[in-house]
Structure formats: structure tokens, C-alpha cells
């Protein structure tokens, strides 16, 4: 009781510290909550949509981008295999560029597979549905969002062609799953979908409902017996699981960053609690002398920390919710940019996430206050009364802590660069590295400060020396501030250097890959194969004056021994393999590849499937299985899923179609590209398909824009961690200023003007910030190396060239110094205002 009252009285007198600790935890918890909510909302939206689209289907037959011959459906039906439903689906753009999923179905086949879709489509008069093109059904939420009602026209654009759909009916979604899962979806007849998406004669998949057990196994055998070459039968959930997995690494990255913010928040709690312990050492000593047990004291102090943490957590939860809205937008956009079209409209409250974050916030606060509490409990009643003992202890501890830090850092490095491990081991290594670095900081600050005292004195006289000495002597408090700052700046350096390295690698790759001058393709959504280009387009473009040659590309997803993989079939233009950046290859790789006797794989593909030059990849082509040797591993940052390059020769042999998705145009040196694009457009007119003509520079700029968008979310998180750290520095400096009121009073009494005190205090904080910045450079670089070399490779399969821009490091160090200076303004102002007599009396 006495303890609690004492505690309350103390915190009421020192509201700043408590408020900062609460703020730190609040921010940390908010970031965790926001990231987790954004992640779960995105994942849930994706799952819901996958579930609603899957319906009752247990299996599906598909054949990659090439699709299935629609005759297969008739064959299955006439063999009595049902329920089975044909699907042609893809994305179209509504006015304003809003992507809508066009779901082409046969309403009667949907019965028993996706009843919600069946009943929606069957709301339309069968005569109109079947005999007229463009009949579409929207579910109510979507219709309302688009502001459309029955009878309205819905113009859409797909693959560069415009089509007019008519809203034939607006259906009430029968349940929540449908409402959520089928948002963004327009249900049309298969015939309409084929025409709009340019998939005449083909089906994207056939969904099957097959019972478990023997009867089902027999049906599966029947289906398998009828599968044409190149078609595969798989369980319905597999595709969704693969897509989910695709973004898992991305989501894990975000989680790791959110935990970093919480870690910094924990340092603030530690700071506040340990400051309160320092402040109350006389009191605590008296309490011990009065017979309060150590355990009691320990529990009391921990309870204080937990209380602060709980308050912070309570404030952090709603804050996290608000922040999640912002993050969700960034996360969704990134997934849509990189992986597939994902539409998430709102944050889904997930009680599990909130409970987890709350528990984490309270737990971390408890753990963070345990150290100071232990210290408070273990000092003997006598030494507690001696003010100098704490500093002595901090000095004593700095060395062992530093050694522990080195050991932990070493463990982190081992996790990162030792034996191969998963991405989770990678992140564990990073955290070990960070905490290790944090533990070394107090010792390093002290050494640096002592070392700096003489040069600083030489430079600016006594105040300089005093500032440096002050940093060293106030280690028990400034140490924590320095740690918080170092951790934050380390993260800033690590992440910035990683992003910069990634960007540099990407730029280098783009520069070598974009060897042609103009690229032509039809518009398409992310993750979707661009629609085929008109036949003969390449030849027409090649004939345009000023064009020296053309290359073509075909992008598709095709079944292989590794499931559905991304395939790129190139007819390389006049420059051969000049546009390919090799990582590893056989001596005659290019010749073999060009002759259709070998394939190239991209780096991520090699990483995901554990393949290297000399291994083979088997494709399930319409001509049967083709097993091909890998002649080269090439760099390619286009997809983290990886892809296989094949030559046009091999593609033509195995897939037997002349489809192309892109044309690369090579121009005469020095040609006016704008004018040439005009001429190419002219030549391509009359095809009735809107095409995109982009110069290499434009593609480069667009790719980098996507890249920057991708890392926007990372930058936001990094910024939040830095804000938490700045709050920590502010708190620590404020504590220090209060602590040193007596000392300042003596200085004032000795004749220092308030301005001189101000200057002294600011130089001290500036110096602290500067040192933290400098100290953050080595761990920051290590972190950057870990992120670029280890995490990226484990998460995405890319190896990136670590490139360090000194200006970037200088900026980070400056950031630390400025943050410390800004945070030190108010504490310095307070110190300068100290009235000497009063302060000395209090001190006495």
C-alpha cells in the first residue's frame, strides 16, 4: 500500500516520463496492431474471395495460360462427370480503371458448384442470358459501389478493347461469404467472357465436385483418363494456397518491421522505469531499510512498468486501428503491384490480433521493467542511499553487457550467414544482431565519449570537454537513450541501404534488359498474362521505316513438374542475348537455348526449386512431357516467383501456337522515338485493339515507380520506428536534465550564463545523437547486408548487389544528431532556466 502510494505520488510529480513511456508503448503497439490488421485483412479478403470462387469445388482441371480446349467440358459431361463447371475468368477495367473480375460461367453448370453464382445468373431471363451477348449480373454491394442498377450499361475495357456489358440483374448475395468473396466480380455467360477476354474456344478451368472415398477415386480416374496433354488435375485449394504463399514472405517482412517498432517502444518503457528507479533510489533505500522485502520491491516496480505498458497498450489499440487503414491501402497496392489484383475495402477487426498485440504490449513492458526493478531490489539499503553507486554500477555493467552483446550479435550473424535456414531464422538473426548491437552501445558510448573529451576540449574549450564527459558520466541514463537511438538509426541505415541496393540492382538489370527501344503490348492487369497480340503485328511493325528489327515475347503460365510456372518464350531480336544478364551458364548456353535444346531459369526460380545449371525442368506441353536441361541461371527481377525462359523455337515445337504477347522494336541509332511510336501506332491501327507503345525509358521509369510504391510501406514503418526512438531520446534527455538540475545550479552559481548552459546542454545532446549515429553505422551496414544478402534471397530468391551510398550513411548520422538536438531543446531550455539557489537548496 505504502509502495503503491509512493509510486503514484512519484509519477504525478514526473508526468513527462510516464507520458513518454505510455506514448512509446502506444506507438509500438499501434504499429504491431496496424501491420497485423492490414495483413490479416488482406489475407482474409483473399481467402474469402478464393473460397467464394471455389464454391463447393474439390478439384479443378486447368492447363495454364493456354487454357483447356472447351471440348473437354463436353467430354466430361457426356461421361456423366458432374457437378462440373467450366470457367473463363479474367480482369477487365471499369470506367476509371477500376479492375473488375469477369467471371464467365454456365449458370446451370454452376448449380452444385457455386450456387450463389448460379442463382444470381438465373435471375436473368434465360433467353436474354443465352442468346444476347454482354448480359451481366452484379451483386448488390458492387452494384451500389458502381452506382449501377438493372438495365444500366457497364462499359469495360479488356486487353485494349472496349466492350459494353448490360447489367441484366442485381442479385442479393445470399450470405456474407458471397458478399465479401465476390466483391469486384461481374458474372457473365461463358460466351460473353470468351469474347471479352479473347479466349474463344478455350476454358481457363473446369471445377469439379468429387466425393471422398472410393466412388470419388473412380471419378478422378475417369477424369484423368480424359485429360489432354498439358492439362492437370489438382485439388481446388491448391491454387489459392499457392497465391497465399506467394505473398507470405512479403507479409512476414511487414511483421518483422512492426516488431522492431515494438522493440523500440520497449526501450522507452525500460528508460522510464529505470529513470524512476534512479530518481527514487533514496526512497527505495529507505524502504529497504524499513524492512520492505526485495521481492516486494521488485514486484512493485514491475507492476509500475506493466501499468504504464497497459496504459500505452490501451491507447495503442485504437491508434493501431486507425493506422491500419493507411497501411492496408499500401499493402493492398503492393500486393496488386507485385502479385495479383487484390481488392480490400476495409480493415477487418480481428479480435485475435488485438488480443495478441495487447498481450505483447503488456508483456514487453513487464520484461523491460524487470531489469530496473531487479536493480532496485538488489541494492543494499546502504548503497541505495549513495547516489554515485548507480553510475559506478552502470560503468561496471557496461563491459559485461558489451560482451554479451558481442556474443548475441555473433549468434545473429551465425543465424544469418552460417548454415542455410529459413526466412524465420533470418529474421531471428536480425533481431539477435539488433539486440546485440544495443547491448554494446553503453560501453561504446562511454569509450567514445572519453576519447572525445580531449579533442572536444581542444576544439571548444571547457564546455566541449564537459559535454563529452557529461555523456560518459551520465551513462546510466544517456545509455538507454543512446540505445534507442542506435537501434532506430540502425534500422534506418539497414533498410535504406537495402532499398537502395535493391533499386540499384533493379536499375542495372533494367538497363541491360531493356535493349530494344520500344515495347508494344496490350494492356493487362498485374499477375495476368497480357492478351495475345494480333497475328502479323510483329511483321507489320518490322516493316515500319526506321525499325531495324523486332523481337517477340510470349508470356504464359504452363504446367510443369513444379506445378504451374511462369514461362517466357522469346524470339530475341537482332541483338541476341545482349539483353540477358547471366548469373551462371554453360559454355554453349546461348546456342543450345536458341536451338530449343535448353532453357534458362531466373534466379528466384532456381532458388525456389533448388535448381542450378545442368539440372532439368520437365514441362507438360500439349505435345507431351518435355524435359529440358537448364543452360543458364539469369537475373530477373520481374517476378519473385521465378520464371523459365524458353526460345521461340522450343515454344513453337511444344505449344504449337503463334501467340505473342509483346513485341520489342529496335530502332536505328539516334531515331526520334516519339515520331517512331507515332509511325508504329499508325501501322498497328486497324487491328481494333488498343496497344501500349512504351519506350525503354518509360518502362524503366514505370518499373522504378512500382518499386518505390512497393517499399512505401516499409518506409512508413521505418519512419514510425524512428518517431518512437525520437520520443525515447526526448524522454531520456529530459530525465537527464532533471537529474542534473543540481549540477547545472552549481555551474550557474559558478557564473555560467543561461545561454552558456543552454549551449552546454545542447552540445551534450547533439554529441550523444552524433555518437549514436556513428555507432549505428556498423550494425546498420550489417543489417543492410543481412536484408539484401540473406532475407531477400530467402524470401524472394533474389541476390542483390550490396551498394552503399556514403551520402546515405551521412544522412542517417545527421538524422540521429538532429533528432537528438530537437529532442534536447526542451530539456536544455529547462536546464537553462534553473535558478541556482533554489536548485542547490533542493539538492542539499
Amino acid at each position, binding site marked *: 500500500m505504502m509502495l503503491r502510494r509512493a509510486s503514484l505520488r512519484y509519477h504525478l510529480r514526473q508526468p513527462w516520463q510516464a507520458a513518454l513511456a505510455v506514448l512509446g508503448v502506444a506507438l509500438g503497439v499501434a504499429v504491431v496492431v496496424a501491420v497485423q490488421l492490414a495483413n490479416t485483412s488482406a489475407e482474409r479478403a483473399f481467402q474469402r474471395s478464393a473460397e467464394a470462387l471455389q464454391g463447393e469445388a474439390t478439384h479443378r482441371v486447368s492447363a495454364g495460360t493456354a487454357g483447356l480446349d*472447351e*471440348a473437354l*467440358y*463436353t467430354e466430361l*459431361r*457426356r*461421361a*456423366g462427370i*458432374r457437378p462440373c463447371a467450366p470457367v473463363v475468368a479474367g480482369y477487365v477495367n471499369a470506367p476509371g480503371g477500376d479492375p473488375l473480375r469477369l467471371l464467365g460461367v*454456365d449458370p*446451370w453448370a454452376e448449380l452444385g458448384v457455386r450456387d450463389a453464382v448460379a442463382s444470381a445468373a438465373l435471375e436473368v*431471363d*434465360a*433467353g436474354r442470358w*443465352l*442468346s*444476347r*451477348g454482354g448480359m451481366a449480373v452484379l451483386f448488390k454491394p458492387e452494384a451500389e459501389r458502381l452506382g449501377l442498377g438493372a438495365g444500366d450499361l457497364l462499359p469495360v475495357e479488356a486487353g485494349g478493347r472496349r466492350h459494353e456489358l448490360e447489367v441484366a440483374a442485381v442479385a442479393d448475395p445470399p450470405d456474407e461469404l458471397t458478399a465479401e468473396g465476390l466483391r469486384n466480380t461481374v458474372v457473365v*455467360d*461463358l*460466351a*460473353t467472357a*470468351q*469474347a471479352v477476354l479473347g479466349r*474463344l*474456344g478455350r476454358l481457363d478451368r473446369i471445377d469439379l465436385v468429387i466425393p471422398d472415398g472410393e466412388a470419388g477415386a473412380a471419378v478422378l480416374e475417369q477424369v484423368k483418363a480424359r485429360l489432354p496433354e498439358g492439362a492437370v488435375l489438382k485439388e481446388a485449394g491448391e491454387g489459392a494456397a499457392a497465391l497465399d504463399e506467394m505473398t507470405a514472405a512479403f507479409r512476414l517482412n511487414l511483421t518483422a518491421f512492426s516488431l522492431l517498432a515494438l522493440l523500440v517502444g520497449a526501450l522507452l518503457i525500460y528508460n522510464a522505469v529505470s529513470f524512476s528507479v534512479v530518481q527514487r533510489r533514496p526512497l527505495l533505500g529507505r524502504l529497504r531499510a524499513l524492512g520492505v522485502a526485495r521481492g516486494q520491491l521488485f514486484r512493485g516496480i514491475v507492476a509500475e512498468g506493466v501499468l504504464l505498458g497497459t496504459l500505452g497498450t490501451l491507447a495503442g489499440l485504437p491508434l493501431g486501428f486507425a493506422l491500419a487503414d493507411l497501411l492496408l491501402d499500401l499493402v493492398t497496392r503492393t500486393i496488386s503491384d507485385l502479385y495479383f489484383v487484390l481488392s480490400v475495402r476495409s480493415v477487418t477487426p480481428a479480435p485475435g490480433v488485438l488480443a495478441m498485440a495487447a498481450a505483447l504490449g503488456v508483456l514487453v513492458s513487464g520484461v523491460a521493467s524487470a531489469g530496473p526493478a531487479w536493480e532496485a531490489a538488489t541494492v543494499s539499503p546502504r548503497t541505495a542511499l549513495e547516489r554515485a553507486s548507480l553510475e559506478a554500477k552502470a560503468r561496471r555493467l557496461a563491459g559485461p553487457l558489451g560482451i554479451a552483446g558481442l556474443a548475441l550479435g555473433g549468434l545473429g550473424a551465425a543465424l544469418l550467414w552460417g548454415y542455410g535456414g529459413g526466412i524465420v531464422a533470418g529474421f531471428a538473426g536480425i533481431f539477435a544482431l539488433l539486440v546485440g548491437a544495443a547491448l554494446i552501445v553503453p560501453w561504446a558510448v562511454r569509450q567514445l565519449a572519453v576519447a572525445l573529451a580531449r579533442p572536444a576540449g581542444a576544439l571548444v574549450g571547457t564546455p566541449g570537454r564537459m559535454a563529452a564527459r557529461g555523456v560518459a558520466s551520465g551513462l546510466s541514463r544517456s545509455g538507454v537513450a543512446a540505445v534507442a537511438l542506435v537501434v532506430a538509426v540502425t534500422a534506418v541505415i539497414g533498410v535504406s541501404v537495402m532499398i537502395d541496393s535493391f533499386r540499384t540492382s533493379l536499375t542495372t538489370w533494367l538497363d541491360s534488359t531493356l535493349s530494344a527501344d520500344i515495347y508494344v503490348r496490350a494492356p493487362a492487369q498485374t499477375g495476368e498474362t497480357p492478351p495475345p497480340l494480333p497475328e502479323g503485328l510483329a511483321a507489320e511493325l518490322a516493316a515500319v521505316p526506321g525499325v531495324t528489327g523486332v523481337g517477340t515475347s510470349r508470356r504464359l503460365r504452363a504446367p510443369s513438374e513444379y506445378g504451374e510456372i511462369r514461362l517466357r518464350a522469346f524470339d530475341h531480336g537482332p541483338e541476341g542475348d545482349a539483353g540477358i544478364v547471366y548469373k551462371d551458364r554453360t559454355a554453349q548456353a546461348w546456342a543450345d537455348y536458341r536451338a530449343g535444346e535448353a532453357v534458362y531459369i531466373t534466379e528466384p526460380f532456381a532458388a525456389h526449386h533448388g535448381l542450378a545449371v545442368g539440372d532439368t525442368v520437365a514441362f507438360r506441353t500439349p505435345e507431351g512431357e518435355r524435359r529440358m536441361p537448364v543452360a543458364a541461371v539469369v537475373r530477373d527481377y520481374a517476378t519473385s516467383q521465378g520464371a523459365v525462359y524458353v526460345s521461340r523455337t522450343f515454344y513453337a515445337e511444344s505449344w504449337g501456337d503463334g501467340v505473342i504477347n509483346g513485341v520489342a522494336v529496335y530502332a536505328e541509332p539516334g531515331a526520334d522515338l516519339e515520331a517512331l511510336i507515332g509511325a508504329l501506332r499508325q501501322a498497328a491501327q486497324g487491328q481494333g485493339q488498343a496497344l501500349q507503345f512504351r519506350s525503354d525509358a518509360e518502362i524503366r521509369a514505370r518499373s522504378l515507380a512500382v518499386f518505390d510504391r512497393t517499399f512505401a510501406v516499409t518506409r512508413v514503418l521505418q519512419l514510425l520506428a524512428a518517431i518512437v526512438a525520437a520520443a525515447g531520446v526526448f524522454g531520456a534527455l529530459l530525465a537527464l536534465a532533471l537529474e542534473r538540475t543540481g549540477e547545472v545550479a552549481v555551474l550557474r552559481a559558478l557564473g555560467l550564463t543561461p545561454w552558456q548552459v543552454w549551449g552546454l546542454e545542447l552540445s551534450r545532446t547533439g554529441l550523444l545523437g552524433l555518437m549514436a549515429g556513428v555507432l549505428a553505422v556498423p550494425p546498420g551496414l550489417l543489417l543492410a547486408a543481412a536484408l539484401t544478402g540473406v532475407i531477400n534471397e530467402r524470401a524472394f530468391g533474389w541476390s542483390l548487389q550490396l551498394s552503399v551510398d556514403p551520402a546515405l550513411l551521412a544522412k542517417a548520422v545527421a538524422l540521429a544528431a538532429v533528432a537528438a538536438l530537437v529532442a534536447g531543446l526542451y530539456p536544455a531550455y529547462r536546464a537553462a532556466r534553473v535558478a541556482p539557489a533554489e536548485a542547490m537548496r533542493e539538492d542539499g
Partner: protein
Amino acid sequence: MSVAEALSGEPEAAGYARAEGPQPFSFPRDHGAHPDYRHEWWYVTGNLEGDDGRHFGFQVTFFRFALAPEPLQRTSAWATRQLWMAHFTVTDTAGETFHHFQRFARGALGLAGAEADPARVWLEDWALSGAPGAGLDRLHAEAEAQGVGIDLELSAAKPIVRQGDRGYSRKGEAPGNASYYYSVPRLTAEGRITLPDGEHAVEGSAWIDREWGTSALGEDQSGWDWFSVQLDDGRELMFYHLRQADGGTDPRSEGAWIDASGEKRRLSSDEVELEVLERWTSPDGEATYPARWRLRYPAEGLELELEPTLADQELRGGFRYWEGAIRGEGTVQGSPVRAVGYAELTGYAE
């Protein structure tokens, strides 16, 4: 679109071919589809008996509905103006179970359709198929759904009968409110019936109706009662009553009497007297149907009492109607006679 709508004579019929007068059939061509008429059906019903005397009824009907009068000018093979529907039922009289199934398929990609020679009509794996050059003389009927199936060989025991006026069957006042209609009034049936409780070897007799037109019912007609009756003395009786909205019977209702040699006599509506003796209400109370009749055909001295082999033979799908096996006992010119047949009762549901 509801099926009832497709069969009614509302104005959307404009542009379709219409049955406007007698015209000679041309076989085998007319066994195939007539895509320019709005509706058409291939209709097989029959009464079968297992080795142990267990009675079964079956129905397999393929309906074709044209949804637009003109062929479509569209690129996708899935676009079509023909929608097919098929009904398949098995009446398990002893087991007191009526199994009924309905399927739809578009008339595209070979999912459903009809061909003239060899005669064949199918919807996915339900099919009625003949042999080259054999018309409807020898047919194989097969259908299966959820463990219920039939697999029957049908052989015509009588020649084709042209119903109405040389196959032109007037249904209403308006000229075109008519259909082309022919039947095979008796086929022997032999094969297997599969039920959830196992397979049964069966034999019996079947009836085939072929009909196509553009609008069948007039505005004032509410439905029809149709009967096919096969007497055990080798003769058949078909007749239908078109019921008027006011409860009366349309005078255009008619029928046919077919003697043992296959000669048909056309019957006008007043030549067959039908008295309802009992009624039956479907379990959900949505419709009440006649369920036992006394039938008199004085010209031939025929008096029969007809009753369903099972009360509940109602198809409760999108298009609700009662279609089931019936049996009868009575006298013809004083001698005892037995009969089996099928009845179709439409327009009773709200």
C-alpha cells in the same frame, strides 16, 4: 424464362416458325430438331415389370426451347439460342418412391441436341439413340442420376401415328396455336433399372411422343390433362383435355384410338368421357391434382377406372407438374380389360 411461359402463346412468339396447317412429315428428318420453332420435345414413358413382378414407371423427356427466332451472329461457341431441358423419372411403385431429376444444358458444343439419322436426342449423358436407317423403330434409352438409372432397349410394336389432322394438332383459337405431333404408341421395352437398392432386369411397354410448335396454349387455357393408355388387347387410347381458365374443357381437346393393326381414329373432345373420382394434394399443399378417373369411350364400349400406380409422381422442379404411371381395369364390350399408361397433368400449381 419459365417453361410454362415458353409453352404459352404470348406475343414474344413473333418471328418464330409456326405450325399453321397440316404438312406431310418427312422421316427421318423430322426425328431431328426443328430449331426455328419455339419448343419441341422427345418424350418417352413406359411401364415396366421386374422378374418378380415389381412395377416401375419411367419417363425420359428432352425439351428444346428456342430463345431467339433467328440464328445468332456471335463468335463464341457457347452462345446459342437453344436451351435444352431433360426430365428423367423412375416410379418405384412397390418401394413407394418417385425419383425425379431435371437437367438443363445449352444447345451448344454437343452438350445437348438432336439428330435425325440415326435418330438421337441427348442432354449430356442422358440419351435416346437409334440405329442408322431405323428411324424410331429401335432405340436405346439411357439415363442415370444419383444412383437411379435406366438402360432400356425399345422396339416399336406399332407404326408411327400422326396425331390430330395428319399430324397437325390444333391447341387454340389462333391459327399457329398448334403443334406438329406424332407418336409411337407402343414399343416393347427390355433392359435394366438401377435403384439405390440394386439393379432390376425389367420388361414392359413404352410410348413415344414427338411434338414441336411455337405456341401451344391460348390465353384462356390454364393447362392440360393428357393420357396415354395401352390396353392389354393390343389397342391404345390417347387423349387430352385442354382445361380452360373458367374450369371448362376446350372443344379442341382431342384424342386418338389406335387399333391392333395401328390404324388410328381421331377422337373429338366429347367422344371420351372422363370423370374425376379422387384428388390428391402435393405434400407442401401447393397443388391439388385429379388422382383417379372413370373413363368411358362408348363408341368402342370401353369403360375403365384409371389410377396412379403411386399418388406422388409430381415433378417439383422449376416447372411443376404431375407426370406418372397409371394403371386401369375395366371392360371392353363387356369383356374384362387391363391397361397401363401415363398421365400428364399440368397447370395445377399456382
